[in-house]
Structures are given as structure tokens and as C-alpha cells.
């Protein structure tokens, strides 16, 4: 964030002192009050959004923190008892859900990177005048509702569908069944289907940051590398990929974080054996009405994500994401 300061400082010329041209303040007193008013301008501008987020984004976390240490029942009401068993219970009961969430999300993120990179690369370097159209086609699937598209995967992956029969004929399903990814010669209701849905649904979140970092690469660097007799693969390994790292980091975070909390894919494409932690939170909050348990679980999820993300960002050593 500090890196942006010089730019924005340049963009905000202190209009007050600049101004014999806009001589609105005739006397000295009026000048200083105008200046102090101007000093308050950013705060006034930030106030509505800041207040909204403080009340409806930050404050809820405090309510949830207090809820997570409550105990009681729905009939008798919940009271704060500083009872941390909500946390230990959640971990004991839902450890497999947590594990599955991060495993599925990590796999989906990796697949998104593998599938998204060639597309982002193609749009950035090979698309020519088709670039705008291709970008529209990447965002276009967004316009049909998330849920409707996920339901479409139910059709695509269905037992009688073409995907299953092709995979069956080349005996890939046997291999994945051995690995525990599928079972009974079907794709729906297996971990593979859930990962497929997650990969699909979060792919644009990977492609767009990748594209924007690839697009910024100065093409004379590629030419320079080739002039120095680098093979195309070497150019990619030593020039293109390192320069696209900010996009890789942003893209992996933008896919991994929402994917690890998602429960739509696991619900629509999976089975009870593929439920993720989002499904558990949703059930506790909306069906069981055990609010303390739901609060404790979402705190654990948030904590794990914060740890994973901060370790990852330190390893990746990225400067500016926002």
C-alpha cells in the first residue's frame, strides 16, 4: 500500500496553495478555514462506506465472538458462559469437514491455475484484436446464475451422460476409484464432481488477475530474451512466469478463499460423504439453530484461512494486492 502513496500524492495537488487562480477565499481567515475543511474532506468521503462496513462487517464479528462462547439451548436461550467446548466440539466433530474443505479448495485452486494460465496467456499475447471478445467470453458465464450453472454440471456429469461413458470407456474411472476420488462407476456424488464444480465456478477469479498481470508485461523483454538465444520454454520460465507472479498470488487467493467456504458445490454435486465445512456451518445456523456451534466453526475456518494466507503471502513475497 505504501508503494501507491507517491502516485496518489502526485494525483492530489494541494489545491489550496495553488490557487490565485481559484481565489475563492479573499481574507486570510477564510483561507485557513477552507484549508481545514479540505483536510477533513477525505474523512467525509470515507464516512458512509466506512460506517456501513464498521456496523455491518466489523461489529458482527464481535457479536459472533461472543456467541461462540455461549451455551444453552434454543428454548432456554443462550448465555455467555465462556465455554470453549464449542470450539473443541466443532473440531472433534467436524475435523473431516475442515480437512475436506481445504483439500478440495487447494486441488481446485491448482486446477484453476493449470486451466486458467493458458487461457490468460492466450488472451494477453496471442489474441490480437479478438482480445476484447475473449475477455467478454471469460466473464460471460458469470451472467447466468451461479446456481443454475452448477445444476448444469449435474446434467453434464450425470451417470448416463457422455462424460461418464467416455471416461468409462478409457478406464479412467477405474483409476480414480482406486484413488478414492470416485466410486461405483459414477461421477456425481463423488469428490471429483465437487472439485470439478469448484474449479469451474472459481476459474474466472483466477483468469482475470492472471490476465491483468500478463498484459502488463513489456513485450520488449520477450524480444530481449529471444535475442539472447533463449528458447521459448526458457523465456517462459525465466521471464514471463516470474513477472506474472503477482497475478498468480492474487488469483490463487481469490480462488482458494471462497472455495474453502463454499457449500453450494458440495451440496448440489456431492454426497453426505463430500460435505465441506460450509455445509456444516449452514446446517448448524439455519437448520439446527445452534448458533454458538456455527459461530465457533466460522471462527475456526477464518483463523485457518488467515494462517494459510499469511504464510503463503510471506512465502510468495508479494508487495501489492489491493
Amino acid at each position, binding site marked *: 500500500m505504501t508503494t501507491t502513496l507517491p502516485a496518489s500524492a502526485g494525483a492530489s495537488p494541494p489545491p489550496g496553495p495553488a490557487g490565485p487562480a481559484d481565489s475563492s477565499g479573499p481574507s486570510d481567515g477564510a483561507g485557513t478555514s477552507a484549508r481545514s475543511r479540505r483536510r477533513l474532506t477525505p474523512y467525509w468521503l470515507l464516512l458512509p462506506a466506512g460506517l456501513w462496513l464498521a456496523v455491518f462487517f466489523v461489529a458482527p464479528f464481535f457479536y*459472533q465472538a461472543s456467541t461462540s462462547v455461549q451455551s444453552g439451548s434454543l428454548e432456554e436461550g443462550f448465555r455467555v458462559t465462556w465455554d470453549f467446548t464449542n470450539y473443541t466440539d466443532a473440531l472433534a466433530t467436524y475435523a473431516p469437514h475442515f480437512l475436506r474443505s481445504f483439500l478440495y479448495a487447494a486441488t481446485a485452486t491448482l486446477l484453476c491455475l493449470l486451466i486458467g494460465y493458458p487461457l490468460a496467456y492466450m488472451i494477453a499475447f496471442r489474441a490480437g484484436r479478438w482480445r476484447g471478445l475473449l475477455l467478454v467470453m471469460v466473464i460471460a458465464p458469470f451472467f447466468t446464475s451461479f446456481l443454475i450453472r452448477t445444476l448444469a454440471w449435474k446434467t453434464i456429469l450425470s451417470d448416463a451422460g457422455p462424460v461418464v461413458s467416455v471416461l468409462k470407456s478409457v478406464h479412467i474411472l477405474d483409476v480414480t476409484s482406486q484413488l478414492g476420488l470416485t466410486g461405483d462407476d459414477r461421477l456425481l456424488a463423488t469428490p471429483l464432481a465437487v472439485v470439478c464444480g469448484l474449479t469451474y465456478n472459481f476459474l474466472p477469479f483466477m483468469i482475470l488477475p492472471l490476465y491483468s498481470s500478463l498484459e502488463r508485461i513489456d513485450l520488449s523483454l520477450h524480444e530481449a530474451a529471444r535475442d539472447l538465444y533463449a528458447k521459448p520454454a526458457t523465456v517462459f520460465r525465466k521471464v514471463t512466469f516470474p513477472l506474472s507472479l503477482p497475478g498468480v498470488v492474487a488469483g490463487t487467493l481469490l480462488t482458494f478463499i471462497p472455495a474453502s467456504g463454499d457449500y453450494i458445490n458440495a451440496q448440489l454435486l456431492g454426497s453426505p460423504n463430500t460435505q465441506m465445512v460450509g455445509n456444516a456451518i449452514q446446517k448448524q445456523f439455519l437448520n439446527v439453530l445452534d448458533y454458538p456451534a456455527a459461530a465457533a466453526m466460522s471462527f475456526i475456518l477464518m483463523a485457518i484461512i488467515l494462517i494459510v494466507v499469511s504464510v503463503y503471502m510471506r512465502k510468495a513475497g508479494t508487495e501489492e494486492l489491493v
Partner: protein
Amino acid sequence: MATGTHIDNSSRTKGGSAGGSPAPAGGSPALAPLRRLRRHAVVLAGAASLLYLLLPNVVVMLFSFNKPAGRFNYDWRAFSTDAWTDPCGVADMCGSLGLSLQIAVLSTLVATAFGTFAAFALARYRFRGKGTGNALIFLPMAMPEVVMGASLGTLFLNTRVAFGFVTILIAHIMFCLSFVVVAVKARVMSMDPRLEEAARDLYAGPVQTFLRVTLPLAAPGIAAGAMLSFALSFDDFIITQFNAGPSTVTFPMFVWGAAQRGVPVQVNVIGTAMFLIAVAIVLGGQIAAGRRRRQA
């Protein structure tokens, strides 16, 4: 905008040199197709990814012409245009669609206004607390939706606010804000401050400068932010489910319920229509921008 043609040229030179260099090393003509395949491997892989992205939309479109036998529209039975001629033939569906539209419009208006103010503050000024402001804007985007939805729901439960239209609206404005700020901020930061200085030098007052120079320059960013927040609000399910209560059913919530009870074909019709309308708007915008560029 001139970069488009620039890139175009350099990619052409790149293709030329890539075609030239392996030829002397390659040798045998039998390997020529293989070599061509390798040179276009990126394009082929990219096209495959694009197909993967668009496949569900094709399926949704195809199955909007299906005549399913049972309640579920997952298997192809027979061609029919029934659903297209009677898109609102399903109980409650168009009502939920209208509700989603209302919420999306209202939350877009508020989020775009508040977000634009905040973006100008963060892009244009140096002030104490700017880092905190940036972090506050960034965090909602870096938080899984379940966590945000559940904690906002907990707030409403604790303060005994009745769930419904208002709570959905509050939640949608909350998560749309950040995206508007990011879109507008990027645009404002890339604007040339000299244009505004020039306006002031030509004796434009602050209001005039803002209305005639600053706002038109920032407009594409504001429009992008507004479109994004409309799309996000219209499509949101997770946060909405935690903050809607039992009686207020948005379109995504209707689809979720239908996924358990049986999905009517009309859902595919709406999905297809949304897709086509949005693509038409975006393409229309692109064509208009292209024409303006050519005239300029």
C-alpha cells in the same frame, strides 16, 4: 487504446520469429505437423479452457428447450418451446426474480454512491487512517461468504432485527461496497491530474471541474463498479441465505429450493435470457466504444 494495435504488431513479429527459429533445427518434414501443433499449443489449451467455461451455459441453453418427463430437468427428453412461451408459468418464480431485481438495483445505487466517495478519498488524498481504510475495504473480499453471512446473521439475531427485505439489502450493500471501491479507485488512480489542473487554469470552478472533467473521466470506473455490484447482488446466494429469513425468497434462493423439489425448465429460460441480455449489453458497449475510438 492504442496498445491494442501495438500488441497486435508485436505478437505478429513474435509468431514470425518463433516460426523461423525451430525450422533449421527441426529437420525432417514428417515432424512438421507436430511442430505446428506445439507452436499453437497455448492457443489450443486456451480454447479448451474457454470451452470448459462455456459448456454449462450451452447446456443451460439447450435444456431450456427440453420437455422433461418428471420434475427434474436433468435428462434430455424432447424438443419443446413451452418454457419460452410461458416463462412465468411456475409459481413464485417471477416474483422472486422481481425481488432480486429490486434488491440489486437498490443495493447497486447505494453501494456505487458510497463506494465512489470512498474511492476518491483513498485515491486522491493523504490522510491519517488511510491504511485502516484500505484494509477495511479489502477485508470483505478476503473473507469466505459463509463467515460473513453467518456473522451478519448473528448480529441481526442478537439485536432482534426482523429478517427480510431490509436485512438482505443491508447485507448486499455491505459486500458490494468493496468491489465498487476497487473498480473506481483503479480508474481514478490512472487519471491524468493535469487535465483537472488545466480545467482550473481555464477558470473552471471546483464544481465545474468536477462535473465537466473529473466525473466524465471517472465514469467508466464507476460504471464498471455499478455493473459488478449489480451482478454480485443479483447472483448472491450464500450471504443472502443467512440474512433473508423464511418468507423473503430471492431468485437464487428459489433455484436452491427448486434443486431439492424439482427444477422447472423455466429456470433454464431465465438463465439463458440473463446470459444473452448481459452479453448483448457488453458487446454493444464494446462496439460503441470502438466506434467512438475510430471517430476520435
